[in-house]
């Protein structure tokens, strides 16, 4: 069993980390998809980066990451798992799908950045600590109503959940947050996901203990908010940490089952956002 898991991990890592076999002439064309990390205020030691502040990630390139490397992004809750998570996930998307991704450096944008609307997909990590200004609330509502898509990930327990619900209800008082059913299209756009697996952080994953972080609510659930046409504008992975799974997918102790599931879910969300 362990041998099989290691073998699967090696294969997955190879798929993700191997460079393309031959150069593609069309690679001169800018990429279509940017995995864009949304910068927000709030969180542990976090700071708000306004329009004039440089974005993080411009100092690191994905190619400079070492095997098994993770963490080190700093900058606040929004930067959790940055940049390894972003880079490794994008490598996987590039290898496994036909999405033409940007994988040179991590990419982030602040809510009030004028460039926000040029990136119709956003990733928000640790939204349990997120604090939105009124201006940001209006902005995000506009973003999603225009067709933008946001994946909220990595928040645990009732306290953080309450914060996420509060912020989302400020954005969409007229659209309820609902739990998604596995028969819904978002779980079948690329892979068929037939169960909700709790994706633990790297510590819990490697130590083999409980996969949850907060004892007051340990069950993983996936929520969403749909627009008037039934299109999901946001997917919320509660009590799971997909970001850690992408970040540590090449750490031997981190179980492949979680990494695989995280890639499957993440890719499904991307394909969904690019087709709905």
């Amino acid at each position, binding site marked *: 069993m362990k041998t099989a898991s290691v073998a699967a991990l090696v294969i997955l890592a190879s798929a993700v980390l191997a460079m393309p076999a031959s150069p593609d*002439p*069309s690679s*001169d*064309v*800018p990429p*279509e*998809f940017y995995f864009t990390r949304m910068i927000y205020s709030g969180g542990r030691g976090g700071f708000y980066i306004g329009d004039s502040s440089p974005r993080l990630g411009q100092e690191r390139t994905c190619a400079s990451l070492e095997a098994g490397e993770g963490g080190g992004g700093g900058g606040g809750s929004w930067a959790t798992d940055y940049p390894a998570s972003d880079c490794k996930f994008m490598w996987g998307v590039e290898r*496994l*799908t*036909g*999405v*033409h991704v940007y994988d040179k450096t991590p990419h982030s944008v602040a809510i009030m950045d004028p460039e926000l*609307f*040029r990136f*119709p997909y956003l990733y928000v990590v640790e939204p349990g600590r997120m604090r939105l200004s009124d201006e940001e609330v209006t902005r995000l509502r*506009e973003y999603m*109503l*225009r*067709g*933008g898509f946001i994946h909220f990930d990595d928040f645990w327990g009732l306290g953080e959940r309450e914060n996420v619900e509060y912020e989302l209800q400020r954005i969409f008082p007229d659209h309820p947050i609902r739990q998604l059913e596995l028969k819904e299209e978002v779980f079948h*756009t*690329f892979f068929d996901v037939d169960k909700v697996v709790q994706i633990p952080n790297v510590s819990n994953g490697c130590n083999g203990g409980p996969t949850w972080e907060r004892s007051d609510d340990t069950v993983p659930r996936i929520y969403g908010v749909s627009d008037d*046409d039934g*299109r999901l504008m946001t997917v919320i992975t509660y009590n799971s940490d997909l970001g850690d799974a992408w970040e540590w997918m090449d750490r031997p102790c981190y179980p492949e089952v979680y990494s695989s599931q995280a890639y499957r879910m993440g890719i499904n969300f*991307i*394909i969904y*956002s*690019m*087709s*709905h």
Partner: protein
Amino acid sequence: MSLFEFFFKYRPIVYEKGRLTFELLATKWLFIPIAALAVIVAIYFYRRVAKEKLSPGMIVLRSVAFIILLFMVLRPVLNVSQVLPQDSYMAVVIDTSESMNIKDDGETSRSQKLLKKMEESQFLAELSKRFKVRLFEFNKEARRFESTAELRFSGDRTRIEAPIELLSQEMGTLPLTGVTLITDGVDNASQQFNEAMSKLQKRKIPFYTVGVGSEDITRDAEVIKVTAPREMLKDSTAVVDVQFKSSGLSGKKAVIDVRENGTFVKTQDVTLTADNQVGEASIDVPVKNEGNQIFSFAIRVAEDRIAENNTLDSLITVRNDHPKILYVEGEPRWEYKFIRRSIVDDPNLVVESMLRSSQNKYYRQGIEDKATLEEGFPKKKEDLFGYSGIVVGSIESTFFSQEQLNMIVEFVSERGGGFLMLGGRNSFSSGRYQNTPIADILPVELLADRAMPVVDQVKLILTDRGRTHDLMRLSGDPATNNKIWGELPPLEDFNRVGDVKPGGVVLARGEPDKSGGTPILLAFQRYGRGRTMAFMTGSSWHWQMEMDHENQTHELFWKQMLRWLVSASPAAVTVTTDKDTYLPGEAVNITGDVADKTFKRLNNARVTARLTGPDGTNETLAMDWSGLQDGSYQTQVNASTKEGTYQLDLQAVVGTETIGSYKTAFQVKDRPVEFYDASLDAGNLRSIATQTGGRYYPLADMDDIPEDAIYVDGENAFTEQKELWDVPILFMMLVVLLSGEWLWRKRKGLA
């Protein structure tokens, strides 16, 4: 006595009809050499006297005077034929159609003016002194009448050939000297006028035509033509062209009211053009209600004197069809998402898409049946031809087999489908389509080399053609439309292509780049029975993400693009009529097109059309293969006299199998043609008069006819000689010439 008679002694018609001779000359042509000789002699003797003081002017004066004198001495006469009083007949034919009720001056109708003139001039009495008068009235048909009190002026057509036919019948053997035809000249119903006229022309019967009415009706605006699509998809916008003209109202503001089955829809302001120049308004008409809808277009302006010509109808069949579009995309990209998103609430369009999400992995959307597109892009004609349109995104040409590429070409040329290629890194030349059959059907030339898309911001600019084309109409108001297009964010990439092909139309270009070039961004062309489009960018999604979510420009643009793509795609079995509106009794030409599922046209089908009238009565018409075109069946029926909407249901059967069916409709409606182009057509009346050896008279001069009409050739005529030597003008000219010449000589010291 008129001024002409005062100077010339006789009426103009005497000079027109008379033949000049000289009683002292064997032939009138001798006058010329005699006059020339006399002039030479006179000049000779003149010169002997005047010598160096002689001037050419003096010579001319004396010569002309000499000629006149010679003319008078030689006893000139006009030999003119005229009839004996009461020895022949004169037919008086009066137009009693509705147009005679028009009040050209806004106060008195044409018929009133006519009757008043006839009474004041005692026209019929004066005619009766010279002729045996027969009275006829006509509009659509002609009949005799006895008294003007019987006349009603209510005919809905004017057929000038009608009285001519009647005259040929009733007066064929009588000595008919002439015909006085009193009308406003507008003939809207004759079909064999020339044939009818030739019978009377052989008898050399002159027509004295009297024009009633004004050649320029003041203060009238009329709708003269409405051009609308015959069929529309529900919840579309029909672009209807309304042509109008006016007289006496140039530059004034008017409105065109649009009604649907009598219910007000909208109004549009127009400015009336110069007199009798055709103006045109292009009106966006929303079509929301399924079925056969009558749209009426009425022009309204203050001071308009004739209301009967203000409205024209058009029948549009609004279908609640669901044309299917197949969209093939080679990679997940934002353009794909936002195109699908833009038409999600379109109740009619069905977009079945296959997105290549990975090598050999496809994500299908918009399908109802799980088996649809399971095998990938259709390999059989009947599968592909079930679509009305194909959209190809960023996918390389090698994705398709050669058979599939050929099938796509046939889809457009034979099936009549629509084809659209979008820009992208695997589109056009960068997708290596340049040496494939697809290159032939695109409206633009492809570059020979594989050219990657240009990645740069480019603003889309409408061409002149684009500014007026339905497809690019995001607002019914041209100024607003231009503003909307101008405010769109720039695109981010485009594929370079070559020139537009002959027959292709460029609707949009990029604003000039650094080298001054304006790349083509959107073009289309007709190809075979279908149409093809090329939209050279994959970044129109920025028009959605970078504009307020309530702005519907992006959605509207794509709905229009895709609806237009399929709007002309026919069904396998269709039926049409040559017009949407017919006059009662007019011939209705019905054409059916029959093909099977692969759009192979069939000549062996049994085709019938059931015609159902507004009262529910119906008849079944058999349609025969036309013999001229594969799959084309025809028949003809005369429109009923009953006005209303008529439905045609066509069915095509081969053996026991029903191939298909289709419905269409037309309306029968009488049109008050008397009030269209209702100005006096004096030209037509002059032509009739000239052809027959008669004369044209304005109404005011009508009383000259009794005197003029006696001068005719013919069996019952005699020749009268009218002397000309004592014509007053000759004496006057002599006095003037001789006086003038004497004064000149006196000045020169010769007198």
